[in-house]
């Protein structure tokens, strides 16, 4: 177990800079998820942590020791690659025991630890198989087994679930989280899937284009996204955004969208006329059929029932807004309903800087 400090890290490939001064502090035993769209530099950062990529500038420390220039084998880390990177010519047992064999541990100890890891990961009956005789989920577990046998200071995971089908992904998500709770080892986990990030992380690092956009606990990011990018990235389906201005009507502040909608606002210091982006999550929009509860009249475009909930896409002014409700709404496309918005759930962002107001 160790803390990890990423301090002002820069990465250049030749003249191209892909990482622009990243700072992340990771506590002992924390489960940190790096999340962001494809190409934002998550893998590069993880590989710099592992020692597989050189650090162009800045420092990375593991357990208070600066590891710039320390080779991967001396960093006391384990990594699970997206491809699992199993050794094709070795059996499951040999794969899992490999780090111990390289460390020249006695055979009895290797056998014992491999057996224990195999038991934890439910691989005991597969120990004599070769990787090509395993299913995707089993390979994934072998890679995890190889990572846990040597009891490293830090686990690194690079999109370990993205090659699995949706159902298995959910199962493995739970297993990895359980594993973390059992081992309490620091984990840095990379994914592009914000659901994985939300469900697994103690702390999420949202990245874009080689920069950290925001760091925080999952629910903090959900409740108080620091900018439009994070607001749009965290939460599924994505937040609705409307561009417009602050306006006053009847002595109360309101949001006037460019398309002519008037929407309620929370208390805000933003002056009248300020250009803002108005954000509201689909799950925070209520629906009322007749407008008795107030709300904004909108015209239904598409209704998508999933059983547990219903997603409604509706046109309001020139914008399409979507809402998710638990009730089973039967609304014909083209018919009018009302969207009810609680101002407390509204997120306001500056239109220019896209930062939260």
């Amino acid at each position, binding site marked *: 177990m160790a803390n990890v400090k990423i301090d002002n890290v820069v990465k250049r490939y030749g003249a191209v800079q892909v990482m622009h001064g990243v700072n992340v502090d990771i506590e002992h035993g924390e489960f940190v998820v790096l999340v962001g769209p494809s190409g934002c530099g998550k893998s590069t950062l993880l590989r710099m942590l592992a020692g597989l990529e050189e650090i162009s500038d800045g420092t990375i420390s593991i357990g208070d020791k600066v590891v710039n220039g320390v080779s991967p084998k001396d960093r006391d880390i384990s990594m699970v690659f997206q491809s699992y990177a199993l050794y094709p010519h070795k059996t499951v047992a040999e794969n899992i025991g490999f780090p111990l064999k*390289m460390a020249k541990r006695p055979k009895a100890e290797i056998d014992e630890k491999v057996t224990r890891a195999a038991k934890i990961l439910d691989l005991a009956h597969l120990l004599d198989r070769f990787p090509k005789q395993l299913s995707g989920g089993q390979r994934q577990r072998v890679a995890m087994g190889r990572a846990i046998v040597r009891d490293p200071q830090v686990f690194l995971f690079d999109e370990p679930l993205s090659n699995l089908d949706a159902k298995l992904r959910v199962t493995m998500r739970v297993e990895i989280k359980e594993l973390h709770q059992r081992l309490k080892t620091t984990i840095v986990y990379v994914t592009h899937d914000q659901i994985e990030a939300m469900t697994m992380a103690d702390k999420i690092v949202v990245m874009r284009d080689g920069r950290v956009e925001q760091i925080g606990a999952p629910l903090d990011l959900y409740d108080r996204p620091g900018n439009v990018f994070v607001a749009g990235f965290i939460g599924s389906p994505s937040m609705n955004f409307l561009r417009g201005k602050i306006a006053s009507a009847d002595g109360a502040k309101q949001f006037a969208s460019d398309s002519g909608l008037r929407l309620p606002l929370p208390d805000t210091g933003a002056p009248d006329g300020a250009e803002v982006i108005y954000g509201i999550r689909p799950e925070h929009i209520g629906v009322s059929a007749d407008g008795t509860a107030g709300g904004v009249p909108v015209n239904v475009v598409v209704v998508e029932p999933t059983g547990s909930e219903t997603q409604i896409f509706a046109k309001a002014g020139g914008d399409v807004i979507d809402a998710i409700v638990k009730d089973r709404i039967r609304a014909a496309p083209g018919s009018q309903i009302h969207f009810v918005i609680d101002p407390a759930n509204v997120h306001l962002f500056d239109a220019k800087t896209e930062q939260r107001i």
Partner: protein
Amino acid sequence: MHSNRLGWLLLAPTMIILFFFGVVPFFYVIWVSFHQWNPFAANPNMVFNWASNYRQVVFDAQLMASLGVTFAFVFFAVVSELILGYLLAQAFMKDFPGKAFFRTIHTLPLIMAPIIVGSIWKLMTTPSIGIIPSLVQSWFGLDLNIGQSALAAFTVTVVMDIWHWTPLVTLSLIAALVSLPPDPFEQAQIDGANKRQIFWHITLPMIAPAVVATVFIRLMDALRTVDEVLMLTGGGPGSATRYIGVHIFKEVFPRTNYGYGSAISVVVLYMTIVICWLLYVGLIAPRNTKKG
């Protein structure tokens, strides 16, 4: 049915050529090997003589000596080619200025006919005019004369074979190394393996099929080396470099002893098959059965 017949039709030319240039000579050699046949002997006709050619093989002291030097030659040549070829392949995996140029010229020996290679090396090793004896003299103070020293002649034939055939090993190992996935190597680094451990535990097992295939090719080729050595040393001094191919050549052509030469050829073929089979059983088969 129709497409099947078309398939055979398309294959036919290849099969006919293979039949006449591969299968027919093979059986012809076996057939000849059971005959006494020397067109310039008192009786120039083929006379069936049961297995007496084979009996003669067993008691041929010259043949046994030839086999001995052949195995030494093959062993030193192939092992050196493998090691050197691997090191070169690893070097060509890295980036350095002029890499494409060096990779191209290092393969040039491959496209030379063995007889030319033999002539060049003969020129280079002729005492008093060749560059190699002169260099060996000035560097090591040794007098290299392949016409007199058995060891020198043997060594030069080995070096010549290395010079000629290492590029083949390099090329096939480059192909094997290039096709390796990068992930297991990064994973091994993370798993704490050092360079030597990575070589023995990851690289070598993963390129083993290519290595064994290359060894087979080089082994079979080296076992039937004739023209280079014939050109360079003529099999001498004495019979120091009278490798099995040279021995057969000398039996068959100057002495026109066709029946006996054929019998040796068949024995050598049989030995080649046995050696390859042993290699296969030793190196490849265990991997397959373990996986099966």
